[in-house]
């Protein structure tokens, strides 16, 4: 990945993979509401993909100077193996952890690269993923940790 476009293509592909992951999980889900839930996760990833596409077309810029809150909800939660009878709680844990992994990936890449333009792009992507993680963390906080 040596150009901005290549990086963006990689990122766009990753979002597509994530969307596919949730929709295939939705296909297998036993519970109707989890099916719907997982499809909505998938749609969320497709939105991310769309956003990156418009970045690539130059319609919008990816900023990296914003501070995104890290609630650290997922840090100490156990890893979940997604199964057909996955619960809402577990699905959210999976989603948080996936976004966190993506964030780590881009952050690491930004650290290892020297080209300032590319570095900026990776940092921007990392921030995007941090935002996605925050979205799922907030949902987890609101839906699962009602009493906690």
């Amino acid at each position: 990945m040596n150009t901005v476009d290549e990086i963006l293509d990689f990122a766009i592909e990753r979002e597509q993979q994530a969307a596919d992951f949730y929709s295939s999980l939705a296909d297998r889900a036993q519970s109707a509401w989890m099916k719907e839930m997982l499809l909505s996760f998938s749609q969320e990833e497709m939105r991310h993909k769309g956003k990156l596409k418009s970045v690539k077309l130059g319609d919008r810029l990816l900023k990296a100077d914003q501070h995104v809150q890290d609630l650290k909800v997922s840090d100490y939660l156990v890893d979940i193996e997604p199964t057909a009878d996955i619960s809402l709680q577990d699905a959210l844990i999976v989603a948080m952890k996936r976004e966190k992994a993506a964030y780590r990936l881009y952050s690491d890449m930004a650290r290892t690269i020297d080209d300032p333009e590319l570095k900026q792009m990776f940092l921007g992507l990392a921030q995007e993923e941090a935002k996605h993680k925050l979205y799922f963390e907030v949902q987890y906080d609101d839906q699962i940790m009602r009493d906690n």
Partner: protein
Amino acid sequence: MSLKDLISPFYVWQRAFEKPYTQKRPIEDRPGAPRYRGFHMNSEDCIGCGTCESICQNRAIDMVPVEGLEQRPGDSGLRPRFDYGRCCWCALCVDICTTRSLHLSNHYAWVTEDPDAFHFTAGTDPMPWNENSLGYRRDDDYHLLVHDRIEMEMLGPDESVRGFDEVMKGYTEEQAVLEADRCVECGICVATCPAHMSVPDYIRSVRKRDYETGLRLLYETNPFSSTCGRICTHRCETVCVMGYQGDPIAIRFLKRAIVDRVPAERYREILGDDVSDNGRTVGVIGAGPGGMSAAYYLRRLGYGVTVYEAQARAGGMLRYGVPSYRLPDDQLDKDIDYIRSLGVEVRFNTLVGRDVTFQSLLDTHDAVFLAVGLNQPSALRINGEEHPRVLSGLKVLDDVANGLDPGIGRKVAVIGGGNVAMDAARVSRRMGAEVTVLYRRRIEDMPADPDEIHESQAEGCTLVAQAIPVEIKPAASEAQVTIVWGEAEMVADDKGGRPRPVLQEDRMHEETYDCVIAAIGQGGQIDFIPSDYREQIEFKWNKFVPGDYQQTGLAKLFVGGDIANSRADAISAIEDGHHAARGIHRFLGGSADA
């Protein structure tokens, strides 16, 4: 007559050289005294309770909607409009104003050619005196309302912690009348009560000591009055106008004051419930407050009602989730037994999906009401949680309700800040344990009732706020468990949600307990509904999204209770049941006026 009498009057000439008394109005301005009772002003604190209108002896005040002002719970959206053709400037409206928003300015002269200008809405209409800072205000030491709540006798913490006796003793008749007397009967609370109970009316019946009328009013919207009179989340009290300058009316306890004074044997006679059969039947899944409420109102409409309950006793979360020191069993039974006495059949130990299929319910009954509640405790999902000394809060309460020993030991940590957590903590105290409650957020964020929080503290539970559990570890002894938790900082949610706790990794703690009780929330379970049907039903997150009258996309199925609303309390479930009963009646061709 003397010469003096002749001369004396001429003394008056002396005055001719004195400064005249007359003031040159309007050339010289003469502002009213700082307390002058001039024209009306109303601040943004007004919530449109209409108490000013009630006290106005001249009927000079109308409550009118104001453009651009929306009604919301706790604010009727109405504002007082003054007719200066009738006003006598007595300012009783100012004295009685529950929010102290109404004042009189010291402005007393205003000339306009339009007589209708003297008919205006104070505060929102642009009047020349709106910015006046002087004028009549109620003195701080002068009251026409009683601001302090009548205290209820309760067991002291030393005593309450020793057993499961009911903590709140209930009002004596005199106390109840005095507390009821404080109510201004504005009715602002009715919109906020999930069941829209006739709060001002039944409070009046307490004041008049007319408990029969009171009971009838309660049962119009709530067949769990004995229960709700004790453990209702009393959202009504949060908007009570008396809360603006003092304590809100103890609405919940006044409900109890009615049912405490009517023996169960007299319910049927007083309520006059007619239960002639109309030949149709409704199945109800779950004998919790939602299901039983629907059963009651459906039965009153003549439906044959069968309730399918997985447990051995009715009441749902009220039975298994609320300890008896808050809600004694016999009081819950009083409500449930009355509903059953009308001919509602409850099939105990009947789990839909195991003992009877959902399909068969749809086949047998003309409609089905589902209110299974949330009974699946959420897992902590942190490392080590499968340790045998990690217990679920619901399980502990369930065991206690069933007379079993939950085996908690002497030193207990409870995780969570909801009512289940508080109850688990207080139950543990009653079993002699030393209790620490770990909660991720601040105490003021706790979803538990403030009363429960205060009482648990009084009973000796230690509340540790902003504590996030991160790991469970085995302890030296197998009978113990170690929990690792870290301190949290609260960060604001810029999207408007509640503040979120963020773990501070540099401030971690470790502590060993005999057991850890997790009570962080619950989820629902509806796997018994075949997937074909589920496709027709709308869900959001882990809940049903019912349409009007609690109906789902599966036309015969109506849902309610914790699994179908976000409030997750008994009174909302009760209203869902009532609302669904109306909806079912409409669906089956009856009128909604039930």
